[in-house]
């Protein structure tokens, strides 16, 4: 299968790889997927007091498209409010990365990841 240039770019130079302390009050962690299915995505966001995502980090176990989807997501959510970030749709990720139909689930996972991270952050409040 041929990958788009954008997938290859994110795969070879992933943005915002790393971890935050999941126990911090201003950090939200979303981990979605399952090892048995071949992909696990962990997205973490650091949120300011006025509800803006200041920083985002990810780690992903999965194919190139899954890694690229999560890398792109971290770029997109930074600087957004929680409400804006919650509106990010998997279709936008799939379109930006030109994912083929068999890889759409990677973008779905990324959308699930940001939603889970926001929920986790809110549950701490």
């Amino acid at each position, binding site marked *: 299968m041929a990958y788009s240039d954008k997938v290859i770019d994110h795969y070879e130079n992933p943005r915002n790889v790393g971890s935050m302390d999941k126990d911090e009050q201003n950090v939200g962690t979303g981990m979605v997927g399952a*090892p*048995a299915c*071949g992909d696990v995505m962990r997205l973490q966001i650091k949120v300011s007091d006025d509800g803006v995502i200041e920083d985002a980090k990810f*780690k992903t*176990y*999965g194919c190139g498209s899954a890694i690229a989807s999560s890398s792109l997501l971290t770029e997109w959510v930074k600087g957004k409010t929680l409400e804006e970030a919650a509106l990010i749709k998997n279709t936008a990720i799939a379109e930006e990365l030109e994912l083929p139909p068999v890889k759409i689930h990677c973008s779905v*996972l990324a959308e699930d990841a940001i939603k889970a991270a926001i929920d986790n952050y809110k549950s701490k409040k």
Partner: protein
Amino acid sequence: MKTPIYFDYSATTPVDKRVAEKMCDCLTTEGNFGNPASSSHEFGWKAEDAVEQARKDVADLINANPKEIVFTSGATESDNLAIKGIAHFYNKNGKHIVTCKTEHKAVLDTCRQLEREGYEVTYLEPETNGLIDLDKLKAALRDDTILVSIMHVNNEIGVIQDIKAIGEITRERKIMFHVDAAQSAGKVPIDMEDLKVDLMSFSAHKIYGPKGIGALYVSRKPRVRLEAQMHGGGHERGMRSGTLATHQIVGMGEAFRLAKEEMAADNERIRMLRDRLLNGLKDIEETYVNGDLEQRVPHNLNISFNFVEGESLIMALKELAVSSGSACTSASLEPSYVLRALGRNDELAHSSIRFSLGRFTTEEEIDFAIKKINENIGKLRELSPLWEMFKDGIDLNSIEWTAH
């Protein structure tokens, strides 16, 4: 050294130049282009001679009689002809077939088709090393069992089944025994005088011959009968009609002849390269070889790098042409059914890579591969949340994952 480097000899091999030359002699006006069935003129006689020489060369590699060789379009057709042919011919004796979960799809899907026709199939579970427990095989045999079909060498993990022992069991029970030898011919010595095998499938393109040609060994003593699957001019003693493809058959014959001559030396060299590869990878933490290492062809190394997903590793190893037991490449989310049948958990199945080496693999290529793999496993594990959790001492089985 040219990249990408080919490490997928179990998928197919390049045609050996010596084989290609012989094939080219059977195509044009100047060459041996006749129809081997044309018995009325010299063009036909010459083509027939070439086909019969090739039949002998194929038979010689496995110490069989040339009359026991039926040419087909490949191992898939041979598997179909053997299994359906036996089932349809001998169904008055019973309708039960025994095979194994790790067989090639050409065997498994043929068995599925027979199930739709009213046959019953037992799919044996292999042991964790990929080998079949002979007691379990014995226990699966019934009075109405007409056929056992077990592959010689597995295409994914390279393990060698004990077909000599299985043949003793099936012959004693007067049950037909078919062996898919697509991955073993030219790699493992095969002696049909010694083996109690009734039918054996072969492919040319796995041993430096052309694609689109294969053969089925059909035993004459004891005599095995088949219902043909392809009807027409009654070629190949009625078992497989269709004009014989002289150039393909000549290519297969030459490939088998070369295999007989060079197998021992090839194997020794390839085993050395495979061991070099394994040595270069074995110090990477959480690395598992899939399938038995002793009962195995030297050409194959199937290895799982835990916490790294196979397809992303293949993407990182873009200079290496390898294949993955991971799912994503095949557009389904299912990891390799072979590795799952060994009881490997899904993570390890998703993390597997098959390296298959061959006649043209060099030491330089192996060393390059070792370097690339070591570099990239580290990089991908830095990206992997599972690796981080493993390093933090978290038991991944204790987590409730959201399957999707």
